[in-house]
Every structure is written in C-alpha cells, then in structure tokens.
C-alpha cells in the first residue's frame, strides 16, 4: 500500500492494488489518508523553495578559496537539481495558485485563438507597451525574439490574483505560440532563479524580479523554451 501511494508500482501491480482497494474500504481509506499526508506535507514545505536564499548560505566558507568555490558549486548543483525536480513536487490540487499555473492557464486560453489572440496587435507596439506599462505601474518591454524565430503577435491585459497582468504573445513561422506573462507580486521585492513547471502540456519557465513575476509559457520542449527564456531575461535585465 505504501509503494502504491508513493508511486513505485508498475501498471499491472497498481491495477491489482486498485482491485483490492475496491473490495477493502478500510485499506482504501488508509491509502487515501497516506496520499493526503503526502500532499499536505508537500504543500506545507514546498514554499521553502521560493524563499530567497540567505546570504550566509551562498557564502559557505571553508579554509581555502578552492573549497569555497567548490562548496558554491555543490550548492549551485543542489539548487539546479531542486529546480529541475521542482515540477515533480507540485501537487496541483494542494498548492495555492502559483505564477506558473496562472500563466499556463492564460496561455491555454488565448494561444489557440485564431481571430482574437490579442487585444492590441504588434502593428501598434508602442501603444500596446505604453498601455500595459501604465496599467501595471512599471516600464514594460516586449522582448525581441526575432532571432529565435518568434515574432510578436501583440498583447492583452488580463486580470490576475494580484491585479492587472500583461500578456505578450509570440508566434513562429509554423504558428507555434509562446506567451510571456507579467504580473505584480505581493510582498517584499525579491529575486528568484529560473524555475520550471510543467502544467499539463504547457511548459513554463518563470522567475521573480523585484516586484514583478515573469512566466514564459509554450507547448514546446523544455530546452528550447529555456533558450527563449534566457533571451527574454537578458533583454529585460540588460
């Protein structure tokens, strides 16, 4: 039953346990309780991943500078692993709606639109950027992704949990669309590393920069999306 709850069974074994659980309500209840414990514990402690890392931890000191560098490397590796594995820890039904999830939702709503994918098209880019900047209370930029094969389609204003949200849409020659979602974040300004989240078919790279959260969504391979996300990040933080 534990292996069943923790996802260690093959399909056949799982089917067998499923059948057993249908006939044994007490065990089914137990399994349900264990799965719930897992979900509760994750939602309790996953937020630690989003906290800024305290400076002392970024500067673990040992005797020689080489040790210092290596400790930093190990730590970076730890962060990297955490980041790579992060998507797997999210239990969608338990975690408060996150930036990645909101962005992915907005992506699946608007990206398939044929006639009205955006409110203001790229032909009026200065107006679009000016308008969204005004509504979000910051100076926005629509990154230039032409060299990567993605042209700006336009953008729209959305309503998010923290107020107005800007969505920019890009498209490549084959009609593959990416959206960049920019929303104001609650609380103290902070910066986070790139994070990845897989929301059904939509891959999302997202990060927080000061008071604003950015999320780039697309139904493309993670490595390709990462290339675009890096370009976006560089253009927004020259």
């Amino acid at each position, binding site marked *: 039953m534990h292996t069943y709850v923790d996802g260690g069974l093959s399909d056949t074994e799982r089917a067998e346990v499923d059948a057993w659980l249908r006939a044994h309500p007490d065990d089914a209840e137990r399994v349900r309780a264990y799965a719930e*414990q897992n*979900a509760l*514990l994750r*939602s309790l402690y*996953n937020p630690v991943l989003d906290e800024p890392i305290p400076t*002392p931890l970024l500067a673990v000191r*040992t005797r020689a500078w080489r040790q210092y560098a290596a400790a930093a490397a190990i*730590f970076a590796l730890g962060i990297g692993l955490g980041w790579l*594995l992060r998507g797997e820890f999210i*239990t969608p039904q338990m975690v408060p709606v996150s930036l990645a999830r909101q962005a992915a939702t907005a992506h699946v709503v608007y990206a398939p639109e044929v006639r009205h994918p955006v409110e203001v098209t790229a032909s009026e880019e200065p107006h679009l950027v000016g308008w969204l900047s005004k509504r979000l209370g910051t100076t926005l930029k629509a990154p230039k992704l032409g060299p990567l094969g993605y042209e700006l389609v336009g953008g729209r204003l959305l309503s998010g949990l923290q107020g107005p949200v800007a969505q920019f849409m890009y498209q490549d020659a084959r009609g593959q669309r990416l959206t960049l979602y920019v929303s104001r974040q609650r609380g103290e300004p902070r910066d986070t590393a790139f994070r990845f989240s897989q929301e059904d078919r939509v891959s999302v790279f997202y990060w927080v920069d000061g008071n604003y959260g950015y999320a780039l969504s697309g139904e493309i391979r993670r490595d390709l999306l990462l290339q675009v996300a890096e370009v976006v990040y560089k253009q927004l933080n020259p």
Partner: protein
Amino acid sequence: MRRYARALVGDRYVADDLVQDTLERAWNKFYLWRPGSDLRAWLFTIMHNVFVNQARRRRYEIEQAMEELPAVAVRATQGEQLELEDVDRVLRSLSTEQREVVLLVAVEQLTYEQVSRALDIPIGTVMSRLSRARERMRQLLGNQNVMPLKVVK
C-alpha cells in the same frame, strides 16, 4: 536541502545552519562522492549525519525541552480543510527517525531504496518506520474525510 532541513528541525535558523554545516562537510568529503551516483541522496546522507551528531550533543537539552512540550492537540477541523499547522504539529510529534523517513519519501520523493542508502538503514526498517509514522499521523489527524484528493499514482 533547505526544504528538507526546515521540515526536519522546524526552526528556520536552525535549519539553515544545518544546511550550511552540511555544505561545508560535503565539500570536505567531496572526494568520497562517486561521480555518476545520486548526488542528492548523498547530500541527504551527509545532512543526516550532521543532524544526528548535533542532536547527540544536544540530547540533554532536547530531553529537557521535551518535558515541557504540551501533548499534541489537534484542533477540530474548521470547514473542509485540515489546518496545515496541525499537520506540522503532528509531524513534530513523530520520532526523529520516523520524521526523516516520512519527509524523504513524501516531500523529497526519494525511493525507499534511496532512503535506505541515505539513512544507512535496511529497507525493511525504512518500511516499518514509514508505516508506523503514517499510521500515527493518520490517528492524530483523525479520520475525517477532509479533502477530496486523487490518489497519487
């Protein structure tokens, strides 16, 4: 690592100290790490050792503190959702050995095999600790059907 440390010890600053000590130790022992083996599990092993050593030193203090701890009391659930603080309180009430296993399995999602290696205990011990911890949590959290939850595959 910060997530696991926080869940293990509870206090934020103590947890970050544990992470820092672990990282320092990891570097000093880095030559022991076999390239290609599971770095994450290896770091959890080091964290476990650092934690156990610190705990041994502090055992006397902990024993004293334990006597002052109130018995675990879980509030009646309000509405439909178990309070997360209740879950945390129940987690704290487990023995350290049980808490480590539960957290590595549930939060860090290591396999039982990885947990067995990280904590250097037989896999049977992993299973029995996990089983006892989960039953205890289930009893303390009550049997309410609090949340419609899909069983995780």
